[in-house]
């Protein structure tokens, strides 16, 4: 009996240690960023470094300055706010198109039988294994030949290539979770096939739509390779290339580098926190059934 209680104590202590380690592991890097982002330039160069933030918002102010001046960008920090704006537009369209195309395709593969309806879903999931690298050279050559490398429209198109197949797969598993009797009842009530989809089933699949939208928004927002290669205009630069330039001028201000990093990460962090139930369910729905 004492052996048993001792075992329980040991396992409890072990759990406390592991959970503490986990929290430190996850949160410390964020703390280090916040620490230097909220430290004045002079203090950020102190050795040993400060361990408590000085609550100096100078770095953030510097970044937001570009909002109020019409002068062309003169340093990498001026590109952050425009980058956030440009990325928001691109990611919004990518998410919207994924919701539309993904829900239609997902519904088709969940409900109807037509040539290819059995084989294609597996292939769609398989496309996730294609490294995006294999696509960047052809996209570059093609978009350049139609003069789309100076706008972000080409990037929206490129982002669709690796988000849509997964969105279709995710939506398919959400629709499969809705009983087919719902469709049948609506048909008997006189709905056309489109009305069944649009008025009846789609509202029931809202969690799926949210997952697909969020997931594709985050993928688009976080993409660096296409954003770097497919757009040559500085004033249309997206957020990831914009903050990547901060590293080259880090010696001038670690604070701005950290503040820019946090600002660039904030939207996806918030989305992930708010919606984590949807995200995890949606993503595992895809992965669990390889």
């Amino acid at each position, binding site marked *: 009996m004492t052996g048993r209680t001792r075992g329980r104590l040991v396992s409890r202590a072990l759990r406390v240690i592991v959970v503490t380690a*986990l929290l430190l592991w996850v949160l410390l890097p964020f703390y280090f960023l916040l620490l230097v982002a909220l430290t004045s330039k002079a203090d950020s160069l102190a050795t040993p470094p400060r361990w408590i933030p000085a609550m100096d918002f100078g770095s953030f102010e510097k970044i937001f300055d570009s909002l109020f001046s019409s002068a062309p960008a003169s340093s990498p920090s001026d590109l952050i706010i425009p980058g956030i704006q440009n990325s928001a537009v691109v990611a919004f369209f990518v998410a919207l198109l994924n919701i539309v195309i993904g829900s239609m395709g997902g519904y088709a593969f969940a409900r109807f039988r037509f040539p290819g309806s059995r084989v294609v879903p597996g292939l769609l999931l398989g496309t996730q294994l294609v*490294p995006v690298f294999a696509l960047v050279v052809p996209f570059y050559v093609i978009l350049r*030949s139609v003069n789309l490398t100076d706008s972000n429209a080409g990037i929206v198109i490129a982002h669709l290539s690796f988000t849509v197949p997964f969105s279709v797969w995710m939506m398919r598993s959400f629709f499969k979770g809705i009983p087919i009797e719902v469709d049948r009842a609506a048909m008997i009530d006189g709905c056309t096939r489109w009305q069944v989809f649009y008025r009846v089933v789609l509202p029931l699949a809202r969690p799926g739509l949210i997952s697909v939208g969020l997931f594709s928004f985050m993928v688009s927002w976080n993409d660096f390779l296409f954003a770097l290669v497919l757009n040559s205009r500085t004033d249309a630069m997206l957020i990831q290339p914009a903050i990547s330039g901060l590293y080259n001028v880090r010696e001038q201000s670690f604070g701005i580098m950290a503040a820019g990093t946090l600002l660039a990460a904030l939207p996806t962090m918030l989305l992930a926190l708010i919606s984590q139930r949807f995200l995890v369910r949606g993503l595992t729905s895809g992965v669990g059934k390889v």
Partner: protein
Amino acid sequence: MTAAVRSPRAARGAARRGDARFGMGMAAPALLVTVALLAYPLVYSFWVSLHDQTLGSRGRAEWVGLDNYRSVLTDPIFMPSLGRTVLFAAAVIAGTLLLGTVFALALNQEFRGRSVVRGVLILPWSLSQITLALTFGWIFNSTFGPLNGALKQAGVIDDYVAWFASGQVALTVMAVAFVWSLVPFATLLILGALQTVPEDLHKAARIDGAGPVRRFFFVTLPWIRDTVLVVAVLALINAFLAFALIYVLTGGGPGTETTLLSWWGYTTAFRDLDLGRGAAIFYLMTLAMVVLAALTALCIRGRSRKGRHE
């Protein structure tokens, strides 16, 4: 037997045809995107890799057959970067699986605040590779970074470590960053699998006298093995794409000491502007990915056919 008097069977057949047509219509946009934006570029990429296409030769590409592949495979950079990529991927996979499993085991128990911990877990996963690079670039900054500062204050080191001065250490730092960003997702997936392990199995093993360690290896691990494999493939894919981290932190250097295949492909295509060779490198990587993933899928399917899961 006019068309107006349709038998129920004929009516059902017509409905089914209508269903099929509607289904195809609904699937059309998705298929169009997949074919036009994914399949076609993949094929086109192969076409580019068979040509001598540089940025100067705008539009005009000269057929060179497999020359690009030959020159890539015999390039003195190839073997070392392949070796580094394999080692890097192995380190990322091992770290991710190990920490992910340990954290998942801890989270699989009931305790106060568990949902908060699970909530926080998703944060690193939501970051881009660039933010990841900047974060770890700061932590491991050799002069002002917090890690050197903390280690020195704790008396672990006497002099600051120049983390990015040697290729091996720099690659290790990047692997740590990757593991950091992948562990949360791995934890959530493995946790999901752990929650399906039947309690009876553990009870039976306990009655047979198996301790916690043996129960893990002989009961839990076999049960979650498929999920572990999936996590390994996800980690592998990510490790293969380590390009952005290298772009920010080392630029492949010092020398070519941190040049992984992805970085080599990028510089070949977009710095040396040799699109044909770049496409060849990326194509070889794609092939390797597909083969590895197919092997994993076969592995999973082979086992589930043997009857445990189905």
